[in-house]
């Protein structure tokens, strides 16, 4: 644990400019910190809310606790062991790409029950298409329109999924 905290120093130094590229050591330290923290959380949660039991009569918490300990040990090792090869430089998705892609399923989930299949697919696809740098309003709307009609035909009429085309909001 100690070494892990020490190892975190380069991270703190580079914070603010993001994880600087090409420094694999830092990336592995981030890895170790994230997963050791996670292991502490899951381990504590297991001890606090579940019965651990004995090896002969394992309680619900035994396996999770065992895994949390293993996770902590292995992640610490990742932070300590020097990586064999230099990692590839990091490339990120621009934020305007990331947000629509991640929000698309959320929007679908929120829209499908009240609005129905057609509007939900339309919104999802239209939103998602703006993740691309090459999205134009007109083509996005065309794509979303065409695709949502296609999905209604395939999923509602051919596969008979029990999702209404238009939801209760439209009074049907």
């Amino acid at each position, binding site marked *: 644990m100690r070494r892990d905290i020490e190892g975190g120093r380069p991270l703190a130094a580079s914070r603010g400019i993001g994880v600087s590229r090409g420094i694999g050591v830092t990336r592995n330290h981030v*890895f170790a910190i994230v997963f050791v923290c996670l292991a502490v959380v899951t381990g504590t949660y297991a001890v606090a809310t579940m019965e651990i039991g004995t090896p002969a*009569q394992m309680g619900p918490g035994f396996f999770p606790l065992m895994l949390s300990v293993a996770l902590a040990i292995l992640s610490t090792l990742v932070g300590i062991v020097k990586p064999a090869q230099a990692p590839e430089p990091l490339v990120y998705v621009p934020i305007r790409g990331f947000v629509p*892609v991640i929000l*698309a399923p959320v929007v679908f989930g929120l829209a499908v029950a009240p609005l129905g299949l057609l509007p939900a697919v339309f919104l999802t696809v*239209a939103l998602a298409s703006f*993740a691309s740098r090459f999205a134009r309003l007109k083509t996005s709307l065309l794509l979303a329109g065409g695709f949502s009609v296609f999905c209604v035909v395939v999923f509602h009429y051919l596969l008979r999924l029990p999702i209404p085309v238009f939801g209760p909001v439209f009074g049907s």
Partner: protein
Amino acid sequence: MDFLSHLATGFATVAQPTNLLFCFIGCFLGTAIGVLPGIGPMGTIAILLPLTFGFSPESSLIMLAGIYYGAQYGGSTTAILLNLPGEASSAVTAIDGYQMARNGRAGAALAIAAIGSFIAGTVATLVIAIFAVPLTSMALKFGPADYFSLMVLGLVASIALARGSILKGLVMIVLGLLLGTVGTDLYTGTLRFTLGTMDLADGIPVVAFGVGLYALGEILRGLQRETDKSTGHVALTSLMPTRKDAAEAALPIVRGTLLGSILGVLPGGGAMLSSFASYAIEKKLSKKPEEFGHGALAGVAGPESANNAGAQTSFIPMLTLGIPSNPIMALMVAALILQGVAPGPNLVNEQPELFWGTIASMWIGNLMLVVLNLPLVGLWVKLLRIKNHFLFPAILGFSAIGVYSISNNSFDLMVMALFGCVGYGLDKLDCEPAPLLLGFVLGPMMEEYLRRSMILSSGDPSVFVTRPISAGLLVLAAVLLAIVFMPAIRKQREEVFVEED
């Protein structure tokens, strides 16, 4: 000749018009999506999996199997024509296949790849049919401790034989196992890690998990380096291989088939390992090793046959033991469980139609793919001209509908979005999603076998090393780990997996 009557049962099942149709749809969709660069069989299955839930278990497994090898075929096509392998196992095909295409022999490369795959598929179907029953009866001798050790071996093998850091792979496995414990404890009914929501009482929804991890992950990675260019134009020559080509490819096809059939059965093996191994062997055996990398036909024929044979025989552990040997099989297990079918040694007796139907459908599917692929190759190439920024919103739309349709619960879509973020973060930390998914699916089974064996042994953990089968499997796992951690092997392993880039 018992297996012939079994195969007959299987073919009778597949010959039902609906099943034939689903087999065809599976192959067709699998190829169509597999052709798209960046989306391999795993992503394809994750996206299309929800489509199959409305069908009977037979039809849905037949269709999934079709999607699986359809995606393999599709991946090879783009590997040869455009040097864009859709998945890791066709990366090997791209090395020489693309060079052949540049030398004007694209047609021959495609045809040999298809024929090799078909021959391999036929042999692998027979291998499965012959060995399934003996393996199943062996599986019935397995005690809980043996099952536990077998899963340990499978998990260890899945990272040892794949690319990426082994240590991080182990972390991913443990994380997957931990995620697998979310939900209600089977023995006591205690809710674990459910964070107070009943939506998690049945555990993290597996399809939402897989689709988030793979499909969203692929899309985000695709957006990293977006270009407006469509992928390019290819001139296609005659598809008929010459007699000389056929003669040259014959032995590599035979060797690749045998190699793939064996390696596919190993836990953690399957298509990718088979094709890498076959390429290495062909290069060693060739009279003109200098041709490799510059359009050697054997470098296409061998690996393509091997990966198809391996893809197919990797069904054996799943169908006979109920243990998936790779993430694709893990998704198949999840699909079967959602259908109310428990894969395992009893499957063959309880559901002979499902069992043998799936096996027979592999052969039918392979036949369809040859018929479908060679004449339609022009269509697949056209598909590549669709610009990515029209494609990924559609893929997102499909995935969202699919994930929702499983239980009509919006919560699943939040899970999908969450694991999209997780998958992207893990990618930035140089982690592979495959061991995570495998651990997640195996987790509940592993825990159950662990607890059962500990109850039987009254808490004595030595049971895992005193039972011969279990001890043997654990030794194998330990040896495997020791080998990949050895510096010399480690270096070589890195070289092998660098070759695909």
